[in-house]
């Protein structure tokens, strides 16, 4: 059933507006493909395609859990995870731009 969901998502995936317009990849390029790989169960491929997706999903889950259950140190974890996420996104983008 998950396979069918992954195939359907792949059929409605939109190309990145930046890359078709300017020819350069934007920092979010690859997020859709990595998400589809994640649904298919390939964690390694998903990480290679877009390393910041897994921490990003973790961040959203942490946010929802913190809002519902009101964790003690929740705000601190969110801050730290947010900064880690931003770092991974920026470093990944620089790496993508500089390598052919």
């Amino acid at each position, binding site marked *: 059933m998950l396979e069918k969901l992954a195939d359907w998502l792949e059929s409605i995936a939109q190309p990145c507006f930046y890359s078709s317009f*300017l020819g350069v*990849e934007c920092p979010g390029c690859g997020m859709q493909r990595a998400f589809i790989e994640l649904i298919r169960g390939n964690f390694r491929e998903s990480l290679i395609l877009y390393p910041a997706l897994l921490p990003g999903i973790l*961040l959203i889950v942490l946010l929802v859990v913190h809002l519902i259950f009101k964790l003690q140190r929740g705000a601190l974890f969110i801050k730290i995870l947010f900064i880690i996420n931003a770092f991974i996104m920026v470093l990944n983008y620089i790496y993508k731009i500089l390598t052919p």
Partner: protein
Amino acid sequence: MAEINQPSEETNENKEVVVREQVPNATAVLVLGILSLLFWCCWGIGLILGIIGLILGVKSKKIYNESPDRYSVSSYKNLNAGYICSLIGTILAGLYLLLIIIGLLIGTSFMNFFPWENILNNINF
């Protein structure tokens, strides 16, 4: 969002129950800040979300600082975390937009300097 203005209970040294409100908009600022990280590259959405989060955050911080005893500390921590997230998201989005504009303005010299052929051969979504 019915839980925003419900008071949260804290006890002080005399074992009395002190009821404090939540800082207004704390949850909204937090959510806006984190959403601005997901869209900071996408044509200004991240910038708009981050700026709204920043403005709401500054207003709510002022309200908190006027009478800190009235509001609960945990909601202020949420507000602070959301403020920092919105700040980082706005800065990233602003820098990226600036980079794009400068790249477009420089034009032909940018084209000669940057490895466009390599990038053009790798267009995908």
